């Protein structure tokens, strides 16, 4: 099953509400995905700074790692969120920080990287996961989230979405891919690394590879229709926007709503039912095999 939510604000007046609205949408999707939940929030970004979102093994160990990072990188600003920490460093220090993490804190996972994107994911009921990370208090321009009912790989935090596909880019997925093992082997030959047996990680890796080869995100999504076998609804977050793609059969549900203030995505209409102005919003189902994209 799995549930997906996405909220892309057009009206800056709603930005302080982004986290609260997304948390509500995510909680509604608990019964489509009670195993784990995750979300990416696009908040404020400072020019010349890169944010890494790190996932530790426990809140305590993350706190310890964060203070070690602050000691090793005096320019780093850290914000703790339960098992995760967001570390902002000057762009030129990012590679050194990543090397430091790989060497000194190998148990720590880098789940997101970008100027604006922060990514959080954990095992547990979506409502609880959102609470632990304080989603309701977060502000920003757009967010995507996922609630997982595991089918293709184990219930672990590694198997939780979103998956990062590059700087300020991430992907959530509802469905299952049937050629992910083959594709993973091919992509490994292209030099991509995979941490899990999860099918969505392969889709994320595929898009990363296509964009590395020079395609735009929209074009990468278009060619994915030929290369990914299975059924899926993807929602992709980028620094300035978000995109939606359903496979040609479109058996995985998707509903969208648009007003002057926002574009919203939900696996079911229930997700959208409490958004402001939904009574007069344009509500529709995205067409199969069609790439949708919004930017601001």
């Amino acid at each position, binding site marked *: 099953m799995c549930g997906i939510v996405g909220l892309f604000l057009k009206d800056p007046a709603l930005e302080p509400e982004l986290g609260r609205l997304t948390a509500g949408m995510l909680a509604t999707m608990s019964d489509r995905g009670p195993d784990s939940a995750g979300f990416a929030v696009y908040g404020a970004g400072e020019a010349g700074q890169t944010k890494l979102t790190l996932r530790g093994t426990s809140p305590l160990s993350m706190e310890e790692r964060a203070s070690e990072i602050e000691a090793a990188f005096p320019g780093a600003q850290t914000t703790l969120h339960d098992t995760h920490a967001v570390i902002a460093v000057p762009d030129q220090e990012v590679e050194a920080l990543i090397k430091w993490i790989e060497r000194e804190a190998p148990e720590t996972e880098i789940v997101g990287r970008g100027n604006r994107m922060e990514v959080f994911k954990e095992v547990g009921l979506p409502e609880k996961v959102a609470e632990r990370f304080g989603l309701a208090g977060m502000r920003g321009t757009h967010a995507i989230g996922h609630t997982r009912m595991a089918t293709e790989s184990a219930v672990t935090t590694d198997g939780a979405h979103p998956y990062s596909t590059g700087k300020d880019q991430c992907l959530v997925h509802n469905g299952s891919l049937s050629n992910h093992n083959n594709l993973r082997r091919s992509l490994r030959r292209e030099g991509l690394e995979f941490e899990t047996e999860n099918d969505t990680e392969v889709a994320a890796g595929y898009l990363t590879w296509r964009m590395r080869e020079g395609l735009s995100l929209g074009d990468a999504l278009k060619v994915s229709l030929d290369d990914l076998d299975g059924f899926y609804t993807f929602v992709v977050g980028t620094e300035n926007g978000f995109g939606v793609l359903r496979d040609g059969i479109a058996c995985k549900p998707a509903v969208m709503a648009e007003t002057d203030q926002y574009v919203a995505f939900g696996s079911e*209409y229930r997700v959208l039912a409490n958004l402001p102005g939904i009574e007069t919003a344009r509500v529709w189902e995205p067409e199969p095999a069609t790439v949708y994209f919004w930017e601001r």
Partner: protein
Amino acid sequence: MPDIDLSVTPLRELNAALHKLTPETNERHWVIEHPAGGHAIAAGLNVPVTVEINGSVGYYCAGMNKLATVLVHGSAGVGVAENMMSGFVHVSGDASQAAGATGRGGLLRIDGNASSRCGISMKGIDIVVKGSVGHMSAFMAQTGNLVVLGDAGDSLGDSIYEARLFVRGSVKSLGADCIEKDMRDEHKAAVHDVLTQAGLDGEVDPSEFKRYGSARTLYTFNVDHAGEY
């Protein structure tokens, strides 16, 4: 006239109350507020009452409906009026996938568009869609009439049996074993009948529709038994 606010009353309580109704009930007109896309609202009704829902509903609204009239003033999620036996279901907005799936009788009217697989495996239900229907509509449809005032998506009527499909607009593509057929007077009369039952008498001219049905090459069809379908 019971007036149920689903932001206060649990959905299961509402459905349990509806299921308890007997044919002699005096509570014949129910109004539901704040459905908020909830699933299985007014599913499994078995008595001739009217349930009016103010807002959009989730999956399987009015599923398995028998005798009742269910009016949705909003849009409906997957499988509205799924396996309906009789009665009338009216959606004023759009309907998601598989509207009227496997329906055995009654009438489903959708004023907006219906998504993919509208009327999949229909078995006697009549479906009227004022807008368009999505891909794979009337897949393996067996009997009944699907009347579409707008367009139809890809693979209309794939692997169809004896259901009759009438489309006024364009058809993106026909599915396996589905062909266009002559629109004779009896078919115009059939379209007129269904439109009249749906309350759309006079809105469109039945002769504007094209008829699609089975080429009968994919299943064992014996012409001597044609009258039994």
